[in-house]
């Protein structure tokens, strides 16, 4: 079955090349030009993924995310203008799965779409992978053992939890607020410098060159993304 993508975008030129790119990758797609229409189409068509432009003519794109999240966890990838970190964070905190900043290359967008679809796919019958590998790192969450190049590394409980949360959301950007909430709890969502220190420690333990992280990547002003080998 070809995945169905709903694109909510008012600009005809952008719709035109998105159409071409999606068709070439064998996706089915529907188009909506306004927020209103987008929410209605999302309910009517039950797409596998929503591609959402934040600057819509009738209403703020953020409201589309809010509307859809009331009843569905379908993946939403946001298209936003560059430099508006606030909007990106707001979209992610409302439940968007990822964002691509305009202008973007189609290759990047398609990679994000693939990753979002993969995460949304129901897990295989043999359950979630309890062993995750990226680079030299192997994380066995059943045995609670993390090794780098076969050597066991010791993680503090918070580092372990942080890694777990990042792996759970692997491939997508997680905002600082989400990470703080999931690792430290909802009352600590403002203390982002702790988070940064823990991420730095985790990088030192897992990355070959912590100043050029290959996996544990920073999205400046937004949050972090754990990129697994594709």
């Amino acid at each position, binding site marked *: 079955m070809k995945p169905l993508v709903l694109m909510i975008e008012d600009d005809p030129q952008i719709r035109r090349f998105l159409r071409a790119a999606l068709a070439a990758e064998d996706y089915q797609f529907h188009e909506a030009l306004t927020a209103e229409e987008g929410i209605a189409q999302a309910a009517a068509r039950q797409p596998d993924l929503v591609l959402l432009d934040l600057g819509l003519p009738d209403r703020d794109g953020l409201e589309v995310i809010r509307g859809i999240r009331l009843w569905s966890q379908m993946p939403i990838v946001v298209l936003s203008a560059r430099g508006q970190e606030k909007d990106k964070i707001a979209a992610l905190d409302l439940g968007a799965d990822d964002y691509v900043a305009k202008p973007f290359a189609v290759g990047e967008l398609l990679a994000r779409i693939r990753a979002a679809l993969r995460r949304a796919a129901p897990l295989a019958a043999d359950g979630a992978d309890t062993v995750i590998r990226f680079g030299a790192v192997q994380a066995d969450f059943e045995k609670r053992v993390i090794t780098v190049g076969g050597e066991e590394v010791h993680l503090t409980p918070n580092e372990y939890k942080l890694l777990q949360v990042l792996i759970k959301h692997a491939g997508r950007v997680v905002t600082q607020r989400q990470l703080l909430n999931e690792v430290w709890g909802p009352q600590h969502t403002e203390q982002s410098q702790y988070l940064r220190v823990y991420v*730095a420690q985790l990088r030192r333990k897992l990355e070959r060159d912590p100043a050029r992280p290959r996996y544990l*990547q920073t999205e*400046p002003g937004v949050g972090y993304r754990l990129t697994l080998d594709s």
Partner: protein
Amino acid sequence: MADTTQISLQGETPADLSEVEDVKATRPGSRAGWREYGVAIAIVGFATLIALALRSYLAATNLAMVYLLGVVAVATRCNRRAAVMASFLSVAAFDFFCVPPYLTFQVSEYQYLITFAGMLVVALVISAQTSRIRAQAARAVDRESRTQSLYRLSRRLSTKTRVFDAALAAAEVAEEVFGSPVTIFLPEDGRISFRKRTSDQLLISTAEEEIAQKVFDHGRKAGKGTQSFPEAAATYVPLKGASRIVGVMAILPGTHGETLHDDQHHLLDLFANQTALAIERTQSQNAAADARMQMETEEMRSSLLSAVSHDLRTPLASITGAASTLRSQGEKLAPGVRDELLESISEEALRLSRLVGNLLDMTRLESGVELRRDLYPLEEIVGAALQRLEAQLAGREVMATVPEDLPLVHVDDVLLGQVLVNLLENAAKYSPAGSAIEIAATATLAAVQLEVRDRGPGFAEGEEKRLFEKFYRGKSEGVRGAGLGLAICRAIVMAHRGSIEALHREGGGAIFRIRLPLDGRPL
């Protein structure tokens, strides 16, 4: 001149205040004045004791000399009134103790009346002369201390570039010199408001705002110690500049409630005058600077327009040209040529996107963007920048040295990241493909330093400062850009109160060095 400098150096210590106080202390009527009468009486008494001891050996007229010596001693030590009193007292004591019959004021021989008259005249002349000399000396000391304090004031004022700072410095010096709380009020829209003042605490009731306003309007002193509003708590002095009144200085009685005497009032006027001139000068300097900036802004705007229109049109022309070629002749073109045209479309579009991004950044920075600062490991900001430039840096060795124990930096991560991206982009643009780029961070107690080093052609001698100007393009050939990247870097670093500089690298190439203060104080 050399002397004055020395004096003013000593003047920084509180020692010179005592001189001002000394002058005040010798004034008649004060408590110290009564002490001087006591000293005079004691000295006359001592002279009497000596005279009594010598009485049997010397003639009475010679004993008068002992008393005259006593008067000299009093005159050199005490004020004039005490010396005059000592003169009369000496004549009386001489009569009583040294002229027979003893212990009575009666005189046996009338020739002693001549002795008395001569003695009194000599004693009074000595008193008058000595006290005149003393007064002259006191005035000299007074003048000197006044010169000192005025010099100190002018020195402090000369370094100030802001009106408020000048007023603050003047109030501080005045407070030291007069030993009383001093506040300077500056007008807002032509009105004196107690809210715009130099001292943290207002020791005057705001009801006196009106008096200050009157002083400001009419340019005449008022308040305590003057004819108008003598019941006020403070004395208000207008700060009269050459062309207008720039503010009002208020001086309160000192901690012991002492008020200013005439000399100090005179000094206060001089102070007010000098302060007013300094404030006026600062104001006109600022106005000139504003006007200059206005002009520069206009000039910048026009050069921005011409640069922007050129830089925007060039990539647009390439894109339009390539796209229209593909449309009209696509069939006839060799596949290789088609690919080239497609590539130039996407490259030029990227260039356009970068330019628009830079312009937006610059505009945002110039309109005074608010920094969203927090504590970040520098390593993370470096890492994110390298990640963003992965494609542009491909095929090069990039060495990033960020020590583990580097302190967290208090920055806007997105903006500082932009600085690094711009510097790295420049390094990649200007240095030969495949040459290494180094990033090195170090820390001192006060600052974190970050360097980006390349092996490109570097920059010409004398370009160090100009590189950071808007629309300035390095002399390197074959590299296109709007000349905004480094200007953006500088704007961002300055907003962080840091510094950025370009250095020649040993063995060829350029080093861009950023320093960020750790304690938030400007470097």
